[in-house]
């Protein structure tokens, strides 16, 4: 089987291409090139100034010993320990960028980067509390969500249907039961529950730098209020604790003994009779006899007759007494008139008073004032008195918007403590050894 070497070979497939095409010259060329890259050009191709150095310095007579030479060389050379860090080829790295760690880029880090660009030499970056920044951003985004971009008072009235010819009642009727139907707000929603203004006019004495007269008036008012409170306290004290005299402990015990032994002696005395007496003896249904019944009837009859006679008599006298009757009526009507006026007056008087809305009565807050020694007459050193929040709260209560309620309970509920069943060590106690703790 002699195979003739064909002059022309098929280069159809990759395999045949590789087999029959001679690429040694290309490979050669590349190898040569790579070698050159590694070691540099061959000396034949190098330019003269690459190969030779022109010695410009005059030949110095200074004699350098070989040891010194070596030292100098060593000084110039990179330390051997770093040689491993040097690239061992002249081939440039295909990816010049180092492997970067990818972290989360926060708002603060972006800012830092931006800032770094604009920083001058020697400036330091401000330190950001990243958590704080994040929180603030979140807050702001939420805040931004609340937008007011329409005029509420421009939109249509409630319960509107197309037909113009329909009157309001008809419209309401047709809408009833549909989702569009809205109940019209009762009158009380639009009317204020009081005539008092929401912000009361401040007393001129509450100025931070008040007029002498005004301030004295305010102090007087406050003192009056305080006196009232003290008087009430005293009264309560007198009426409750003051009513009872103080006794020593021994006296109290003696009294107790006396009080507790009340009636014991009497019982003994009763017992001495040795006769049983029921507290609640049985009732006997004792019947009246016929005579008694008759007598009773007759008596009743007589009483009735007397009453009737009196009545008829009074009728006759009343006619003569008409003047007095008229007078009575007049008196009565006068009284009602007076009461009516009184009621009106009271209404007028209590119009601005807080109404009774709950079991607890409304309590006025104390009058706020600066004591004379606290007035500095200076905005910087002013002493704040009273709180706006408290003022608003009390104002709501006074204006019948909130019902007066007890102070906010600060006490937390008591915790009941108990040991968990698996932590109980009562297994130690048995019937046999009851006293092991």
């Amino acid at each position: 089987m002699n195979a003739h070497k064909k002059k022309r070979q098929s280069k159809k497939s990759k395999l045949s291409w590789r087999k029959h095409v001679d690429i040694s010259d290309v490979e050669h060329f590349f190898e040569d090139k790579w070698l050159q890259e590694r070691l540099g050009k061959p000396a034949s191709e190098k330019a003269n100034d690459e190969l030779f150095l022109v010695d410009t310095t005059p030949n110095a007579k200074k004699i350098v010993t070989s040891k010194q030479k070596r030292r100098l060389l060593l000084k110039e050379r990179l330390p051997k320990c770093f040689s491993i860090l040097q690239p061992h080829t002249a081939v440039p790295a295909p990816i010049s960028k180092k492997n970067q760690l990818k972290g989360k880029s926060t708002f603060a880090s972006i800012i830092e980067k931006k800032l770094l660009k604009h920083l001058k030499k020697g400036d330091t970056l401000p330190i950001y509390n990243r958590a704080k920044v994040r929180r603030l951003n979140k807050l702001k985004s939420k805040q931004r969500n609340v937008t007011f971009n329409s005029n509420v008072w421009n939109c249509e009235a409630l319960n509107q249907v197309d037909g113009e010819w329909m009157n309001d009642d008809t419209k309401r009727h047709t809408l009833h039961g549909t989702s569009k139907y809205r109940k019209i707000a009762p009158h009380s929603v639009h009317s204020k529950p009081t005539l008092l203004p929401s912000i009361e006019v401040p007393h001129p004495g509450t100025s931070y730098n008040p007029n002498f007269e005004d301030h004295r008036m305010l102090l007087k008012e406050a003192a009056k209020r305080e006196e009232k409170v003290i008087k009430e306290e005293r009264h309560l004290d007198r009426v409750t604790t003051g009513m009872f005299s103080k006794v020593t402990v021994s006296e109290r015990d003696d009294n107790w003994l006396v009080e507790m032994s009340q009636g014991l002696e009497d019982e003994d005395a009763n017992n001495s009779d040795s006769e049983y007496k029921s507290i609640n003896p049985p009732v006997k249904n004792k019947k009246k006899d016929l005579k008694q019944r008759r007598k009773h009837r007759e008596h009743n009859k007589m009483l009735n007759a007397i009453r009737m006679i009196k009545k008829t008599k009074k009728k006759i006298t009343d006619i003569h007494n008409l003047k007095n009757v008229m007078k009575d009526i007049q008196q009565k009507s006068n009284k009602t008139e007076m009461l009516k006026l009184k009621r009106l007056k009271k209404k007028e008087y209590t119009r601005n008073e807080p109404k009774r809305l709950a079991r607890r009565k409304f309590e006025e807050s104390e009058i706020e004032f600066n004591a004379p020694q606290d007035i500095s007459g200076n905005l910087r050193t002013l002493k704040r008195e009273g709180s706006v929040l408290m003022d608003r709260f009390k104002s709501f209560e006074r204006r019948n918007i909130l019902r007066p309620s007890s102070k906010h309970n600060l006490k937390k509920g008591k915790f009941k403590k108990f040991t968990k069943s698996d932590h109980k060590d009562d297994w130690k106690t048995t019937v046999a050894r009851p006293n092991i703790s």
Partner: protein
Amino acid sequence: MVAKRKKKFTSGEGARYITRQGALKKLQLSLKDFRRLCILKGIYPREPRNRNKAQKGRSGIKTLYHSKDILFLMQEPIIWKLRDMKVFFRKVAKAKTTKEFGQMHRLLKQHPKLKLDNIVKERYPTYIDALRDLDDCLTLCFLFSTFPSLEHINHEQFALCRRLTIEFMHAVIESKALRKVFISIKGYYYQVEIKGVTITWIVPHQFGYQPQRGEVDFKIMSTFVEFYIIMLGFVNYRLYNSLNLFYPPKLSIRNVPEIEKKLVNKEALTSERIAGLNLPLHNTVLHTEEEVELDEFPLESSSEEMAEAKKEGEEMNKLKTLFKGLKFFLNREVPRESLVFVIRCCSGEVSWDKLLFVGSTFDEDDETITYQIVDRPIVDKQFISRYYVQPQWVYDCINARELLPVNKYFIGEVLPPHLSPFVDKDRDSYQQYIPPEEVLLRNPNVKLADNDMEEDEGLEKEAEGEEKEESDDEDEPDELKDETVEKLQQNAKKKLSVKTGEVEKEDPWKKHKLEKQEYRLREKMVKNKHRRLYKSMMEGKKKRSKEVWLLKKKRRLIEEKEKAARKGKTN
């Protein structure tokens, strides 16, 4: 056949009221939700006329509501939301206790929110109604804007309060609506006039936050604020629209240095500058100054009122441009926000230390500054070109509606008292005794007639006497003259001639007499119904004026005595 017996309390007072517990049952809400709903919808408890009937014979004092109000609440769609919320919170609590935090966070992201826009419209059918009820709203919002985030209360509420109040202040500045300011120990009282509605509010002093636990139920107040925020937002929108401003407010940040732009994002940058209150906002249209001139009505009857209104209007205009062209510099120890707001409302220019707050426009060494507001006893470096005054001067100027002399307000001076502008300024000196010192304080131009002029009194009396004599003398010849003139006229009539007209002089005394007569006639017209009231009113007036007169007399006598004593001493 007997008619069906009517049950007790099914009509009248008994049917008109419902107890709180009854309302809870009817609405199927918890007490907490019911309270919230009532506050949001503006339903308040009522006091019945006859408590026994209203409580259906039950003893004690119960909180009662109108049953109509409760029926109105029943159809409110918010109720369904509140019920949903109950379920939602239960789910969250369950996720929390079972430590499924992922689930919990997912739920919390979908936190249901109440939409209150309709309620604003429902409670305040018109814009003016909303303005009328803005006092509470503003006071609470200003207060809440000072709070740090607190337990149990949504912290975004505080931030929103701050944003909205600042927006409102900007609107007031733009419309120059400020009328009165008062610094009390509680806080700053401001009064503005918008659309003819006077709005007053209190801003607490800027000190560190003082915890107020235990005294006030914070949750209730925050529910109020929850509604007021929405209301204020819509009011702001309307206000800005009426002032031709963009809402949300826009500012030009062109002049801001690059570095500051880099430091924060754009929104924070603008919002900080808006909070500075010092830069004018962008207009939607090119601004055109409109001078509102009062129309003149040729009605003679109300000429006095008209004149008064005119005067008031002029004063208002004066107040609006009180600080125009003046430049203020605030030292760092004065309350910046309040002063900037107040000065800008009167068209002044303000700035402060660059490091104090964002938004300062000029530095301290600007030579064109006219006033520097200082609140410390000594200032080291002082410029000759400006006045150094204490902050009270600004507030007093606004209340007096004119630039007061500065000398009483210099550094280290003991300040004159800061008077409240809210007391009735035109309280009648005839009705109420005002000591002369106060009169002087209120109006330093007034010359006090009674005491200061005592020396001149004698002279005056003499002069008066002379005048009287003269007038007496004149009267008689006048009468004579009149008679002769009449005679002459009669003669002249025959002759028919034209003479130059004479201006008829009004006799003030005669006019006064006529007026008095007319007044008496008008008094007669008082209805019988009001006669007694009128009588008692007049009597009270007389009594009060008599008291005033008495006090004045007492004072005069005492002073005379003192004077005599002094004279005696000197002699």
